[in-house]
């Protein structure tokens, strides 16, 4: 790619990035710190002084620490066992271990409530009477649900980190007399750190700002739910802005820390491995124990979602004080697909996600081409910028867009034009901002996937086409794109699937029932008394089936490289 084109793309991306990303962030900062034209830290200190907000932040932080710790405890040993040993059913179990990625914790929480409720399946199974598990352990419930949904990210990162270690590093330690857990602690673990921290950071930020799970679990004393509840005051009080800016700061600080501490050492493996790692077949007891451990984790991880499936098949009110529902029915599914509200939400989600993915493909490809195929000195900046949405929580972005929408719709020119109001006022029509939010949030997946494809494709294939007289556009169309099709499709599928089940943006930006996407509809249905929970569960199952099909397709296309997409 010549430098002129690269500079052009660079400038456009920078502009779009400024408008779609920097503006909302600045708007949040301005909203919390510039009041009546003067800079003040009053509201920031107010956040920490207000006992409710301070408790919310503390609880969110504890949720994030708890979730991250639990994912490490689950994901790290499994990754290590998977790399080191061959065992019965390894391929199938490794694939099933990723299943929670297709099971949004937000939906799982519905099943979890059914099972751990006062009159739920667990109490019925153990004949415990009406023990209020959720009342006592709501906090741990949220951690457990989040950890069970997020551990695959850590597992994939740990696997990639382990695969990256030259086996000679561990052999050298054995050669010096160091073996067993001591070797793991002194050599393997430090070498895995960059990958582990990368995965841990994504999980920490996700758990810190997760909105859906605490909402469904009715755990309201955390910052994300407080922000959600404060949306009504968005144009009246600077407090929500200050609270969101604290969450943003924590996330960005952690992301920066991870990049600066471990980013430099990411290429620490300087020499190509001289030998491949060989997985050993364990003998005796261990041969049974390892697959059992995998099966155990998978079983626990899918338990909440099994609860959702059971809920979706149970007649309203029939799963009460019993281990399983007493009356099964498919009526909920029929209603879920026959109800105007649910049908409309599926249509909306498909439209929003498709539009977002089109934006993703265009920008993802353009950014990847500049990053991999140009010689611009500042191309690293574009690469780094496109990854930042991973560091900025969806909740923060959604809040920023809401703030912008609020500002724009109050502008006299916008307020007088119905067309502009349709575009910019989320209370009238949130399509524009939802599409933008979905696209920005999923851009990193698209960029990483496309960059990986381009890096694996020799530039000489393109040069030879140019050498035979093909123009740059023709080279792109006839050579480059066909060669990286699998990567683009994989990135597209992931971006599309995650947009379909996006929670934070959807809950916050969609404010009119006509424009509710699937997740907001599930949330609204769940809150209805009567059959609402059951229809919500059925809609959740439809969504999970859809996401499962997408992820399976994606992993077939990408194979082992899947892990690379979930890194920062």
């Amino acid at each position, binding site marked *: 790619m010549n430098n002129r084109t690269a500079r052009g793309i660079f400038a456009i991306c920078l502009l779009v990035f400024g408008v779609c990303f920097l503006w909302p962030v600045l708007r949040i900062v301005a909203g919390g710190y510039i009041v009546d034209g003067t800079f003040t830290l009053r509201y920031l200190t107010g956040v920490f002084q207000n006992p409710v907000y301070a408790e919310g932040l503390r609880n969110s932080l504890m949720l994030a620490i708890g979730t991250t710790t639990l994912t490490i405890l689950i994901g790290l040993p499994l990754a290590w066992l998977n790399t080191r040993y061959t065992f019965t059913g390894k391929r199938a179990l490794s694939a099933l271990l990723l299943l929670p990625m297709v099971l949004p914790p937000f939906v799982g929480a519905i099943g979890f409530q059914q099972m751990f409720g006062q009159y739920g399946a667990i109490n019925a199974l153990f004949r415990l009477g009406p023990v209020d598990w959720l009342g006592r352990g709501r906090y741990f419930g949220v951690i457990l649900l989040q950890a069970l949904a997020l551990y695959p990210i850590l597992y994939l990162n740990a696997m990639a980190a382990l695969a990256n270690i030259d086996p*000679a590093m561990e*052999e050298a330690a054995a*050669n*010096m007399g160091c073996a067993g857990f001591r070797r793991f602690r002194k050599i393997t673990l430090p*070498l895995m750190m960059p990958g582990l921290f990368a995965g841990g950071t994504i999980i920490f930020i996700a758990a810190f700002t997760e909105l859906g799970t605490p909402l469904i679990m009715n755990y309201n004393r955390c910052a994300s739910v407080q922000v959600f509840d404060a949306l009504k005051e968005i144009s009246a009080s600077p407090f929500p802005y200050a609270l969101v800016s604290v969450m943003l700061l924590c996330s960005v600080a952690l992301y920066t820390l991870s990049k600066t501490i471990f980013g430099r050492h990411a290429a*620490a493996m300087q020499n*190509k491995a001289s030998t491949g790692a060989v997985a050993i077949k364990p003998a005796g007891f261990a041969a049974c124990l390892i697959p059992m451990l995998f099966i155990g984790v998978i079983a626990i991880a899918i338990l909440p979602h099994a609860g959702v499936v059971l809920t979706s098949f149970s007649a309203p009110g029939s799963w009460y004080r019993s281990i399983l529902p007493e009356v099964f029915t498919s009526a909920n599914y029929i209603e879920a697909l026959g109800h105007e509200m649910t049908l409309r939400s599926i249509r909306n989600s498909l439209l929003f996600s498709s539009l977002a993915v089109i934006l993703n493909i265009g920008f993802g490809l353009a950014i990847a081409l500049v990053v991999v195929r140009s010689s611009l000195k500042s191309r690293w900046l574009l690469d780094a910028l496109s990854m930042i949405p991973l560091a900025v929580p969806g909740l923060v972005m959604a809040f920023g867009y809401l703030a912008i929408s609020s500002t724009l719709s109050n502008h006299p020119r916008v307020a007088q034009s119905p067309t502009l109001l349709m575009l910019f006022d989320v209370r009238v029509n949130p399509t524009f901002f939802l599409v933008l939010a979905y696209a920005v949030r999923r851009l990193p997946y698209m960029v990483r996937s496309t960059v990986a494809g381009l890096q694996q494709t020799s530039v000489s294939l393109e040069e030879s086409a140019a050498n035979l007289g093909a123009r740059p556009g023709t080279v792109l169309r006839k050579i480059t794109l066909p060669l990286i099709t699998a990567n683009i499709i994989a990135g597209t599928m992931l971006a599309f699937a995650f947009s379909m089940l996006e929670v934070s943006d959807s809950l916050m930006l969609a404010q009119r029932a006509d424009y509710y996407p699937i997740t907001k509809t599930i949330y609204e249905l769940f809150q209805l008394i009567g059959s609402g929970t059951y229809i919500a569960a059925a809609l959740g199952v439809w969504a999970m089936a859809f996401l499962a099909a997408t992820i399976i397709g994606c992993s077939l296309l990408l194979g082992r490289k899947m892990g690379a997409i979930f890194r920062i």
Partner: protein
Amino acid sequence: MAEPVTIQNLQKTFPGGVRALDKVSLEIQAGELFFLLGPSGCGKTTLLRSIAGFVIPDAGSIHVGSRDISRLPAHKRDTGMVFQSYALWPHLTIRQNVAFGLEMRGLTKHAIAKATLEALERVQMQEKADAKPNELSGGQQQRVALARALVIEPQCLLLDEPLSNLDAKLRLDMRQEIRRICKSAGITAIYVTHDQKEALSIADRMAVLAQGRVQQVGTPREVYRQPATAFVAGFIGEANFVEGTVTQRRDACLEIETPAGILLAECDQPFAAGTHVTLSIRPEAVHKVEDASSDHPNRLPATCRQVVYLGESAQYLVEIKGIFWKRHDWNPDDIDRVGETEWLWIAPRDVVVLQAPP
């Protein structure tokens, strides 16, 4: 103290049926710099990794001194290894890398610091003690890897193609450096390479391997001058091979009839008349007859067919009765011309008689 290494009937077949070691037996003497030489896939690295404990052989034994280490786990074998990729741990400094093995042996902090510094001084890397591996050049990393392996005073040192990641010039310097360090440490060292020049230049003795079997064991001079098989002759340096039949013995020489003519070969092996043999003749052993009246043995008429001038030598392809031979002329005054006819001669001691393939 240096210990001998004895390998007896070592066998290893990898899953998929690849036989990497086929009854390999070797006696490596204490304090010797011993080379395992052979092409890719000959089993030399498998043999070295078997000694280190990273490959478990199917059968056979490995003794270091009187200690049978065949069934010991790698971390209990006390063999210092220099890896092809050096395997310096990137998260530790050079000093920490070198001190690691001593820490594992539970030495006192003072003893570790002293021994680490001495080891780094031995490889002239003391000034880089606090650097991280990625701040060092390939040659420097190589030295540190050597220091790390030697500082634990192992019973034997294992080197797995240690120079293969270095550029040509540095490789030449490091060859002698490795020999100097090994000899100053007085250690038994086993060195794997596929580079014959590396082996010829610094080995005390070497074993040539092919297809998991030992083809020949000897000093560099023995292996080069008296190759035991056609494979060894072809792998170590270049050789012209010609088939022939023994016609009679004349004192210390055999008279052999070949398509190129009758040749005399110095040979003390009892080949009977009528035996089919293969002769191996080095290109540099084929000389041009400068004085027509001289009384050289093994005179052959030849026509020059190709000339490659390399500065320090000229390499010719000559045709002798329809057979093409290679001939190298060192420090040539004149260059032969293509098409020129000439007389060539070979000293009988340079004609090596090998068993003909069955």
